[in-house]
């Protein structure tokens, strides 16, 4: 039979590598899927695009927008992707040099400080809350500054206009190398099992095309395995890692020479769950947090958000 055509939404980030690997290595083709990528600038429009049916599958962090779209019956989370894991470089907590000099040398000192987020209900907002909770103060003790875009936060952090931020390692490490930004902690220490990104699809796909979804997840998992092996567990040797970086470089930082892009790609490698397993415990925690912040309706249940038919959950 002819291959099923599907559209996969992606950002040009290392965290989307499993899809790229599956595509490049022909895992999608093996599953009888003809994949077309649609690239986005931000996760939010990707979620909307899945809701509107323009895109079939996507990978992104759980956000308020995503939950509300799920509540409108448009999308479902069907699997897990990026996962914080102690021991592997995960998201990093940064402060500006100015704040560091004023004594903000550990996350515990963030009380009363400003923290950059893109928007209310973004993953940054969640991380800030969790850090505050664990350090024993409340979110409102920090001044959350929404700047819409990662770039704007970087600018604000460098120029000392926001004190702190947390971000994926490849960006964090590059920033911490400069003079204006200092690393003070790891997100993994606060949310050890943080399910950073999830795989999701339209409710229609999840409920009426289980076969298609299964085939996608199978290919995606194979890609994830290769990626973990090459860059996270480093079991494929330096050669494997180099080959993987070259593969990913086709999609990520394509406009920069590989000598420059390579380290960023390696830095950005975080574990992608095997078999796209989903940390339901953490996802439930995230959902509850959204509810407690009043960002989504209290009536939304985890079943509205997640379809657990496809992957292992824990």
């Amino acid at each position, binding site marked *: 039979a002819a291959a099923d055509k599907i559209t996969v939404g992606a950002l040009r980030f290392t965290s989307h590598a499993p899809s790229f690997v599956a595509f490049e290595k022909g895992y999608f083709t093996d599953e009888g899927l003809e994949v077309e990528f649609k690239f986005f600038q931000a996760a939010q429009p990707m979620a909307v695009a899945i809701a509107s049916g323009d895109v079939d599958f996507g990978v992104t962090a759980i956000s308020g*927008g995503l939950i509300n779209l799920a509540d409108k*019956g448009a999308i479902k989370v069907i699997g897990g992707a990026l996962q914080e894991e102690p021991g592997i470089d995960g998201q990093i907590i940064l402060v500006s040099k100015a704040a560091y000099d004023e004594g903000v040398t550990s996350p515990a000192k963030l009380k009363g400080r400003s923290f950059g987020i*893109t*928007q*209310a*209900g*973004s993953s940054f907002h969640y991380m800030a809350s969790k850090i505050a909770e664990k350090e024993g103060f409340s979110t409102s003790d920090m001044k959350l*500054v929404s*700047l819409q875009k990662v770039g*704007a936060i970087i600018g604000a952090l460098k120029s000392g206009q926001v004190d702190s931020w947390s971000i994926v390692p490849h960006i964090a490490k590059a920033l911490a190398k400069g003079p204006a930004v200092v690393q003070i902690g790891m997100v993994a220490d606060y949310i050890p099992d943080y399910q950073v990104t999830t795989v999701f699809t339209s409710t229609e796909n999840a409920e009426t095309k289980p076969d298609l979804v299964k085939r996608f997840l199978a290919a995606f998992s194979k890609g994830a395995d290769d990626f973990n092996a090459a860059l996270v567990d480093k079991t494929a040797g330096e050669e494997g890692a180099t080959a993987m970086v070259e593969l990913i470089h086709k999609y990520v930082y394509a406009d920069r020479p590989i000598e420059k892009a390579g380290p960023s790609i390696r830095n950005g490698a975080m574990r992608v769950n095997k078999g796209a397993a989903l940390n339901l415990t953490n996802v439930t925690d995230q959902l509850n947090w959204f509810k407690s912040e009043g960002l989504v309706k209290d009536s939304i249940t985890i079943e509205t958000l997640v379809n657990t038919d496809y992957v292992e959950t824990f």
Partner: protein
Amino acid sequence: MSDETVGNQITGKPVPYRGGGFLPKSRKIVAPIVFILIIAFWEWGCRTGFISPLILPAPSEAFDAFMNLVNSGLLWQHLAASLQRLLIGWFSGTMLGIIVGTLIGLFSIARSGLQPLVSAIFPIPKIALLPLFIIWFGIGEGSKVATILFGTFFPTVIATYGGIDNVDRGLIRMGQSFGLTRMSIIRKIILPGALPAILSGARISAAIAIILLVAAEMIAAEYGIGAYILIAGSLMATDQLITGVAILSCIGLIFAWIIGKAEKYFLKWRA
């Protein structure tokens, strides 16, 4: 005269009417009816599922969101924050614009040097410059006000010097012929003569200010209608989105109404 008239009466036929028309009148009552019909249809569409909630929330839901805003008291906080930014940004942009526009309108040096600069900078989308604005003006009120100021400054400059260029040169010559000083001519003839153009520039810059409010409040705004819309957008809370947009629309209408009043007052000498 009348004899002849009577005699010919039988052969006469009236001159055919061929005038009138081409003066469309807008009937005041139609507009509210159209609005009500549209909203009713929209509500009906949402209730029957003809319009999916994904595409548009029902007007009643948007109204609920609005009432939430009112009841929580947040509406006033959002409004206060936005209005403050709008007024400060718009007022200072307009004032600066009038000053620079007047210079361009009066002096060859200013015209030669500044006019091309204004034409070159005017069309730059302010939203593209937001990252730079954050660095230049910080993430406090500064960059928000600056965004609005920037957006309103240029159209005001252009309206002002356009207005001055269009002041009847005959009136200026009249002033000179009566020995009025240069300052008197500027104050009493040129500026009042440019006022209609300046006010219609203010109308445009007020609309631009409101449009830029959303962009301005992308920068670290906790409160503000623009911020409310952005959060609603990022949460895909379309009911709140529609509410926010409707509030902006109302602010726009109110601004336009105020400027209309100002025009009526200042330009009462016009036909």
